[in-house]
């Protein structure tokens, strides 16, 4: 039973409660390169992500939305972690994060790039909550893809 409570504490770490309650970068970014909505129809979590990209580097990242502590904290931590990273680095970070929250059982070595994001590792013990943690990241991924295609379309019309 103690082990089970441990799992629960692992999920709801201080930093997650803090970011869930006081999300960072929680605002509309008027000067954005793209804005992407993300929605989890099963649980109703909803975010709008605003990203400013310059020369393939994320210069700013903000979000608005409503959802559970996990989805809000994950969005908040993501916007902190991706700033000033190249889009390639962000894609690698997405892979590492996805691995962190979906791989069952303990992980021996965490990639350094994850930084604070490791606090979300407890989610992997809660299959019904993994989507809460990955919503922001999937939203970012779709946004980056669309942005990439939009850019190349502009290029192709010239």
């Amino acid at each position: 039973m103690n082990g089970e409570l441990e799992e629960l504490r692992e999920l709801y770490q201080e930093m997650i409660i803090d970011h869930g309650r006081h999300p960072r970068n929680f605002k509309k970014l008027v000067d954005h390169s793209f804005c992407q909505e993300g929605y989890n129809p099963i649980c109703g979590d909803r975010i709008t992500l605003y990203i400013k990209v310059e020369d393939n580097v994320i210069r700013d990242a903000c979000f608005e939305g409503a959802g559970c502590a996990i989805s809000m904290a994950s969005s908040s931590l993501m916007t902190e972690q991706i700033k000033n990273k190249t889009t390639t680095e962000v894609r690698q970070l997405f892979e590492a994060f996805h691995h962190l929250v979906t791989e069952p059982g303990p992980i021996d070595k965490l990639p350094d790039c994850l930084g604070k994001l490791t606090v979300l590792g407890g989610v992997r013990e809660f299959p019904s909550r993994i989507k809460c943690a990955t919503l922001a990241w999937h939203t970012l991924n779709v946004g980056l893809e669309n942005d990439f295609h939009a850019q190349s379309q502009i290029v192709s019309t010239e």
Partner: protein
Amino acid sequence: MNSCERFVQADKEINWTALREDFPLLSRQMHGKPLVYLDNAATTQKPNAVIERINHYYRQENANVHRGIYELSERATQAYEDTRDKVKRFLNARQREEIIFVRGTTEAINLVAQSFARPRLKPGDEILISAMEHHSNIVPWQIVCKQTGALLKVIPINDSGEIIQDQYRALLNENTRLVAITHISNALGTINPVKEMIALAHTNDIPVLLDGAQAVPHLPVDVQVLDCDFYAFSSHKIYGPTGLGVLYGKRSYLEDMEPYQGGGDMISHVSFENTEYNVLPYKFEAGTPHIEGVVGFGAALDYVSAIGLDHILAHEQQLLDYAAEALQPIEGLRIIGTANNKASIISFVMNTAHPHDISTIMDYEGVAIRAGHHCAMPVMERFKVPATARASMAFYNNEADINRLVEGIMQVKKIFG
């Protein structure tokens, strides 16, 4: 063969503790703690009588129905049709032909939308629903409106979660072709004054469909007293198997309706030029039905009938009062749905924790509740909440379960402040 009769004495002093033991799943543990199951509005647990009946069917009676000229098939048919008679008595329908077995409440409503409403609707006609409907009593009407050019009108609800009757009166007009409302709201617990609402619709010759999915497990339903034209409910919410439901319809309407699906069993003669449909109720039961489910459902109806829905209602109302009194004083907790007339369903939100977080923490306390929009997104929008946590009680729940719910909420407060 009612295993629970022994607990229901002549003076109807019911031993609720003994009845709880009829449900084997309720004695299991969850995360190292005894399970407290409070998601009965989603589905109910099954008593031994139902589990054993299905087991017996497969061991002793399994054959296809309405076909075989041999004793086993006749027995299966008998068991299947016996349940139809039980449903007829349970709802106090006039005739067994008015009882159609379908896959669930959802299919029952879709059947009425497509076979009854669709051929009768013209552009500009109106279908009237309420703002507290489950998606299954919204989307089938949206589909048929799109097909026919009819309009979907919605009766608003007040801050307590009650249908605003003045608005209902105002919305009924010469274009209204059907009223479709829920008997009890799954998200709010509101018991609607359906008898009065039906009478009002009938003064304008408008037929009424009731979504009874949440009502049949909690209160006695008499379709003749209500005078509803259609009544839909699901077996699994009243202690029976999943994948099965009932559509009650007044015979005069059912006779006039085209079949919903074509196939075996619903025909009397087939040639490539023409097909004659079977008589009621078989006209609406195409294909091999959910025989095992129907047979098990018969055992479920026997079980609840032996206890008596009037007793179940009284007992659950006590539980509801106990739960409401326990939850109301909790700081930062708000109950959504405070109608005067309510079934044993309590939806709530907390100012520090989202319903999903509440549900995860509750789960670790061994308490199963539902978190989300409860397939009633417009209700969530009406109360300006993204989701709610919902504890829904059955007669087998008790005050100790409610105390565990409160302990779980305290655990949420400990983590989220």
